[in-house]
């Protein structure tokens, strides 16, 4: 028998989120998907050379973003964290500047899309090299602990494939030794380009490795933004209060190919993807909010319209911005002017 709206609402209350916060999570998920799609569309139109998708990660990222304290915490993300980045304060315009590689982009159009860096938002600069950012996050967490900045923590994210890298292991180990204020959040989407989990690791429950390092580990449904929020909030609070690091594993699925340069049907079937799409976190969360009366159908329609308008405006505005110039190539090599040997 289906739950009544009252029962559903009651079940929502245990997460301790206000209706506004629940709507924010939902809106972040919608915006993430819209911007994601726009990147792929622009690529197909020949307007941008490359785009990365994060479809399937919306619940995980919007939920985690809600557990992030803006202006306090530090995020060390990876290249699939579009929703997390929006969720902690990047604007659609900033996302589009990155996709179009314009001069006003955070990194001046130097990096691939989705490689944001924003001191304003507390988002650390990172490269495309898997796991290279994990020790950086640990170093930042060490700095927080060293300066006794209680109440602040670092959230570092990565995919399942990254957990095979040596720097991931080294970083987990160091963080556990020093009980650092950091949360390791694995967005387990089952695929590292074409390599499935079964070829990536002998222990497919990533969270279980936490015990080997001496920290708590927890797995949760990454298609559920509230389960994500709960787990990340608990772990971040523990980190903020001196309780040390946690390894979290959100299980989700990558709906799109790795990037616009990848054809995922060379290594998996459309049926497999479609099967997972039945669990798509967007309609699932939308229905939950509708069933509980947190949101109305009209509000949902208005949100979707609003998100599309915002994406369109951001696209147009970013596209009209200038590219970096050849002179920009020589900036920021070192502090001050750099004159290479000619």
């Amino acid at each position: 028998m289906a739950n009544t709206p009252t029962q559903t609402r009651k079940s929502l209350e245990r997460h301790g989120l206000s209706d506004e916060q629940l709507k924010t999570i939902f809106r972040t998920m919608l915006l993430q998907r819209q911007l994601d799609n726009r990147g792929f569309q622009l690529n197909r139109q020949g307007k941008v050379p490359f785009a990365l998708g994060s479809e399937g990660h919306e619940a995980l990222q919007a939920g985690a973003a809600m557990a992030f304290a803006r202006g306090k915490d530090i995020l060390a993300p990876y290249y699939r964290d579009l929703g997390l980045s929006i969720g902690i304060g990047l604007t659609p315009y900033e996302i589009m500047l990155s996709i179009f590689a314009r001069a006003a982009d955070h990194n001046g159009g130097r990096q691939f899309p989705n490689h944001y860096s924003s001191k304003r938002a507390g988002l650390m600069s990172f490269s495309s090299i898997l796991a290279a950012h994990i020790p950086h996050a640990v170093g930042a967490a060490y700095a927080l602990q060293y300066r006794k900045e209680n109440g602040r923590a670092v959230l570092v994210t990565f995919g399942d494939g990254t957990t095979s890298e040596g720097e991931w292991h080294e970083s987990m180990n160091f963080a556990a030794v020093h009980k650092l204020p950091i949360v390791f959040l694995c967005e387990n989407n089952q695929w590292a380009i074409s390599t499935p989990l079964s070829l990536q690791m002998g222990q497919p429950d990533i969270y279980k490795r936490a015990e080997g390092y001496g920290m708590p580990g927890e797995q949760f449904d990454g298609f559920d933004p509230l389960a994500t929020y709960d787990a990340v909030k608990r772990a971040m609070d523990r980190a903020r209060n001196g309780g040390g690091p946690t390894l979290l594993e959100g299980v989700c699925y990558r709906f799109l190919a790795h990037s616009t340069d990848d054809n995922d049907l060379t290594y998996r079937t459309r049926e497999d993807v479609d099967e997972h799409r039945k669990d798509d976190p967007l309609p699932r969360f939308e229905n939950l909010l509708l069933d509980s009366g947190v949101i109305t159908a009209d509000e949902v329609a208005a949100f979707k319209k609003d998100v599309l308008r915002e994406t369109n405006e951001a696209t147009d505005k970013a596209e009209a911005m200038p590219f970096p110039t050849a002179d920009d190539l020589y900036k920021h090599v070192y502090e001050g002017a750099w004159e290479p040997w000619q």
Partner: protein
Amino acid sequence: MAVATSSSKVLNNVEAVRDTLYEALKNDDRVVILGEDVGARGNVFLITKDFAKEFGTERIIDTPIAEASIVGIAVGMAMEGLRPIAEIQFADFIYPSFNQIVGEAAKTRYRSNGEYTCPMVIRTPYGGGVRGALSHSVSVEALFYHVPGLKIVVPSFPADVKGLLNAAIDDPDPVLFLEHKKTYRLIKGEVPDGHYVIPIGKADVKKEGSQLTVVSYGLYVHWALEAANQLESEGMSVEVIDLRSVRPMDRTLILQSVRKTRKLLVIHEDNKFGGIGAEISAMVAEEALFDLDAPIRRLAAPDVPAMGYAMPLEEAYMSSPAKMADAMRDMVKF
């Protein structure tokens, strides 16, 4: 006549490193040292001996044996406002951290359009002549100096060690600081008191001369000076330039000297192929070919992976003051 108070003292290279690190820790709370055995043991050369007792284990961090993360964690510390000094116990162990140095530290400022920076130092002892065998003798400068965004410093004299290490710690960009381990206790010299810096990227004329320019760095500067003095007693005049920084490199001083002496010999301990000497030779050939009276020559290690443990293998790999003097004589007489 000795004076009661001195504005300098005599230190060897390893004491100069220790004194400089100590002062940096005293002067700036943001400075932390991390590496293998730097705490209770005080580093295998005892450079940080007793530092942990005075500054605490939060600042003198004994790390797990994991070089990639030693550098990677330092990168994160630097991005978040600390001034980490990461130690790689021997330069030969630096390879696991290659990506963190080349791909991350050196590119952070560039890839973030100047928003994030990596003001950090990576210190490591390098070089041979100490029976260090395959894995405790390597020269690594050429593996790293190809990389814009990174600075590489190789001082040879105690006063330079202090001035350049201070500059490296103050520097807003990542600096790889190479210390030749054979010079640690062998080389002594006057070191001024108080804080001073020697700008990174400025070479130094250690001996003036008129018939040949020798450019070298590290242990070999000392041997080159020995050889140059020998030649002087034979009536020949050789100028010896201590590069001190291999990146940025002091193009101006090298060209100035070469235009005066009209001959160039580059001497280094690292392999000849693709080494620092290749870059200097190419630069001088591009800029001053018609000022030269002889072909440029490089005296460097043979193209083999490393010096061996057995004495004849080490001796065959390394140069010597006598081999340097021979090369210098040939050049002067050319």
